[in-house]
């Protein structure tokens, strides 16, 4: 069985460059990021300070106590270290709380930035690119990719930086006491830091990227298994399909095992490195004490500072072993952004506002990508005069919707030209074209928002209408589609929430809301793809009659199986069986 094709990164070997654009988005908040990292660092500093000072204090008091017991006069200021210890204890708690709160705020701000940025990028994609990306699979993928980037700062950026600074800071303190101690610490912990960040990232690169792919494939397989259950069970093929599903799962578990083991190895290395360094520094410090180079309290406090580094490094291996997945997510999102740099036409609309345009299909052929040998349209010539109403008829799959999509530029013809108002649609600025176009697509797309919001979307962008005029326009449009009575009965009227993808409405109602939205656009060129589909006969009659009046003076292309499924038209044109 061939695996479903996934959009993959075009440059798998691009290393960490893929993260570049996202780091730039984050850099817009660099002050916040710096403060967040400083808070992390101060939390660590307080923790290290608490242990270190306590170790110094205990050793110092023990020595003083022994001296006193031996009858030697000795004094020790106990109040300064005592208050220092209290300060560090309270400071560590406060700093940690502030750090968590502040950094979560930052992460949520970044989430808004990243979503806004991605959405703006997607919105710039030409309609024809977007049409290829409508699949549910792609949407899931997009969400997962964005989620992967949400945590970039808190998991992969700040912690390694803070860990590195803490290593350097402790090494500095050690070096102040005795330079060679600092150097030994750096010699052990800097390579360790490299291994648990970059090393882990390398070790996890392939399996973590593959894990995401396999998880996605498992999702596809699971959906197949459930949606095809009737067929699979009836044909006794359930076992075979389950076999492929379990193979996919096994692959996923294998990669997860690989990643988990590598991360476990990484944390074991952290323990070995940090505790080993602590023990090593202890031995060196004790030797130095014997040699008279260090005082006893300092000799016993230094290893404690090293041990306290564990906290800052322990989480790094598990985070970095998954870096490959994050990088791949970024690369995929970048690829989409790269698609949006397509040249678009710039010409203004050549007619007066409200003047109905002529539409000409001149020897148009259309081949969908990947299906070059079977054109959806071949050498088609068709002319819609200004102000004319033309019905385009044909069986499903004959290319009706393709005609509408060519005018709206969801696709461009492979050969020939589509002209609107005498200009090739490719030369018109997309904004100018869309402002003059009312297009009821074959699929009904309503948004999870109020009825009013869904309708207002249809209003011309620069409508300049007051609230009252808008209200009137909405009701007028609802009247045309015969939903005004229904809307008035709703307890919340136009503020009624329309469910996910408009699901709380019946298919026919959703269709009519979409039609009302097109009516509100008040465009001189109207494309209606199966406008009355899904309506019962009586309603279809009423809507057809009211549409008839509204369509007067506009250029209209209507698409359906049969002519009697459409409002009145001047002329009908049929796809021949050959098309």
């Amino acid at each position: 069985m061939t695996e479903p094709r996934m959009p993959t990164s075009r440059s798998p070997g691009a290393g960490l460059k893929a993260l570049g654009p996202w780091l730039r988005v984050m850099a817009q908040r660099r002050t916040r990021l710096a403060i967040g990292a400083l808070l992390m660092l101060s939390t660590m500093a307080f923790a290290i300070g608490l242990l270190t000072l306590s170790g110094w204090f205990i050793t110092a008091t023990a020595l003083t106590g022994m001296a006193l017991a031996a009858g030697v006069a000795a004094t020790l200021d106990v109040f300064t270290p005592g208050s220092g210890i209290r300060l560090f204890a309270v400071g560590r708690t406060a700093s940690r709380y502030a750090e968590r709160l502040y950094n979560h705020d930052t992460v949520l701000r970044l989430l808004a930035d990243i979503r806004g940025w991605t959405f703006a990028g997607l919105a710039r994609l030409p309609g024809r690119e977007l049409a290829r990306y409508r699949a549910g699979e792609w949407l899931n993928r997009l969400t997962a990719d964005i989620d992967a980037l949400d945590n970039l700062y808190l998991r992969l950026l700040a912690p390694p930086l803070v860990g590195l600074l803490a290593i350097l800071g402790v090494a500095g303190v050690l070096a102040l006491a005795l330079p060679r101690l600092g150097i030994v610490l750096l010699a052990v912990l800097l390579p360790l830091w490299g291994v648990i960040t970059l090393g882990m990232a390398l070790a996890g690169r392939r399996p973590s990227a593959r894990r995401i792919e396999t998880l996605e494939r498992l999702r596809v397989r699971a959906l197949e298994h459930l949606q095809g259950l009737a067929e699979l069970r009836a044909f006794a093929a359930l076992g075979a399909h389950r076999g492929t599903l379990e193979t996919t799962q096994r692959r996923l578990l294998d990669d997860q095992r690989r990643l988990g083991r590598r991360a476990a190895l990484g944390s074991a290395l952290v323990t070995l490195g940090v505790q080993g360094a602590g023990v090593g520094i202890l031995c060196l410090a004790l030797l130095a004490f014997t040699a008279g180079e260090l005082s006893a309290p300092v000799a016993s406090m230094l290893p404690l500072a090293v041990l306290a580094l564990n906290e800052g490094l322990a989480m790094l291996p598990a985070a970095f072993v998954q870096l490959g997945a994050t990088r791949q997510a970024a690369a995929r999102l970048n690829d989409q952004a790269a698609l949006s740099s397509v040249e678009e036409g710039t010409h203004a609309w050549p007619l007066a506002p409200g003047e109905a345009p002529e539409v000409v299909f001149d020897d148009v052929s259309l081949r969908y990508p990947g299906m070059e040998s079977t054109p959806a349209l071949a050498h088609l010539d068709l002319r819609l005069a200004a102000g004319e109403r033309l019905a385009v008829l044909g069986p499903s799959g004959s290319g009706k919707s393709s005609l509408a999509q060519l005018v709206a530029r969801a696709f461009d013809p492979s050969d020939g030209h589509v002209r609107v108002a005498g200009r090739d649609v490719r030369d018109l600025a997309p904004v100018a074209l869309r402002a003059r176009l009312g297009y009821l697509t074959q699929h009904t797309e309503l948004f999870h928002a109020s009825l009013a919001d869904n309708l207002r979307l249809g209003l011309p962008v620069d409508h300049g209408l007051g609230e009252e005029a808008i209200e009137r326009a909405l009701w007028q449009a609802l009247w045309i589609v015969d939903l005004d009575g229904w809307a008035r009965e709703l307890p919340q009227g136009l503020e009624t929430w329309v469910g996910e993808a408009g699901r709380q409405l019946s298919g026919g109602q959703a269709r009519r809301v979409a039609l009302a939205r097109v009516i509100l656009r008040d465009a001189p060129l109207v494309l209606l793809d199966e406008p009355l589909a899904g309506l019962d006969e009586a309603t279809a009659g009423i809507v057809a009659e009211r549409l008839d009046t509204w369509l007067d003076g506009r250029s209209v292309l209507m698409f359906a199986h049969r002519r009697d499924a459409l409002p009145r038209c001047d002329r009908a044109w049929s796809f021949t069986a050959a098309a």
Partner: protein
Amino acid sequence: MSASRSTSSSSASPARASRRWLAEQARDVRGWLTLAVAAGLAVGVLTLVQLGLMAWLISAVVARDATLTSLWPYAAGLGGTVLLRALAQWAQETCGLEAGLRVKARVRGQLLDHLAALGPVRLAERHSASSAGQLVDQVEALEGYVARYLPQATLAVVVPLLFLGVAFWLDWLAASFLLLAAPLIPLFMALVGMGAQRLNEQQFQAMTRLAGHFLDRVRGLTTLQLFGRTPQATDEVVAVADDYRRRSMKTLRVAFLSSAVLEFFASVSIAVIAIYIGFGLLGYIQFGPAEQLTLFSGLFLLFMAPDFFQPLRLLAQHYHDRASALGAAEGLRDLLAQSPPRGAVESLTGDASPRARLSDVVVSHPGRGRVLGPLDMTIADGEVIALVGPSGAGKSTLLQLLAGFIDAEAGQVALREPTRLAWLDQRPFLMQGTLADNLRLVAPEASDAQLREALAAARLDTLLATLPEGLDTPLGERGLGLSGGQASRLALARVFLSDAPLVLLDEPTASLDPDSERLVIEGLATLVAQGRTLVIATHHPAVMRMADRVLGFDAGRLTPRATHATPEVPS
């Protein structure tokens, strides 16, 4: 385990049931979990040994003027302890991981069995994407709970007790500072738990809404573009995310307090112990064990204090694993609690027996009452039966009953052996993959030649001839879009691929254009010519004409209609 029981919330009993269910799933991997706990315990013991040796070395060199060179075996032992500790830690994580992975595989298997047993009719009550989500994401959510939380929940009790024991042996007063914090530990965990749970529930809801909004707008991007509304929609996406931030920060301010409390106790205990030991060593404290304090016991106690709280802090870190596993478990339990149909289809043997027989069969749907029956029906071998009637009359129910997808409330369904059947759905299922994949879905062993033959029988050979990639042409969202008629004929090709004697067809010509209708009906005629038994739910006059018997429904009972009755207008 006290730590996990202390979360009191309004939904205590479903949470308890979910915990029980999770514990049951983990039973199979008890071995791995025990190993993980044992390794974690070893980490605790080795940590104690390491810290004790470090304190002892310092005290020997500093207070007793020994030289490190003379103590080298102890220093070497210290190094060995660190190495063993790292090893034990690796073992703990690896064993936990293995347990988590195995539980996932097990639960997924169980779910697949159950979903298959529920059958397509019962499954249709659920959104298939959400069931698939349960199979994938909710099962994934169990890993962290089994791999990390479960071992840590035991270790968070045992390891601090171990440390406490050693601390008592060293100095009971210092130990009691740790112990003072101990009764507060269940309280911490309740606080942490409540915080985490509330955080998780609210965050999850808000996050779902946020993700839903974003997805909704992306899904409708084409429409937004058509209406020139993308700039406003972009602003809206940012505004909704920002609103989410402001609301969740309110929750977080409280939720983070619980972990701050844990942090506070850990910090203050270290400070109090350090100051107590310091003053004790100076001889300022004249009662209790303070006078027996030495540099060794003092340093050892200090070294121990942070590690006493470490298992609890780790548990708090893994708390979100628990919350998401509990959430997932609730959904999974609901699904597994649904009782599947028995699918009790009996077999008839002998060449003379009919292809299928229904005796006194009654079918009821919850909420709709009796849908079918009582009815008796005998389907002869090679017979073609058309079931007609308005939607909801019981046509599909009868087909589902024959296929064993639903149970009869009373009566008996029997099929002649072999009981294999072929099924053609009103909306045939197309998978992502090639044309060949879609056919092999029901006949994994079929050769390319057999696929071509089946496509030809289903009148799809002309389409196949136009495809440059032939059988390897991808179908579905990213490939060739089949029209409704082509999809029906593809489903018909699946029927041709199987040699099942009984073929059940649910409105094979619904919503097709006349050309496609004709081709599908030609295909059906070929099936009849092969001598197969066909039961077809249909509105189509041409299909009815093909049938040996046309049966209508009258209040759930079958009534014969004339085979060449006045054709109904197809709806």
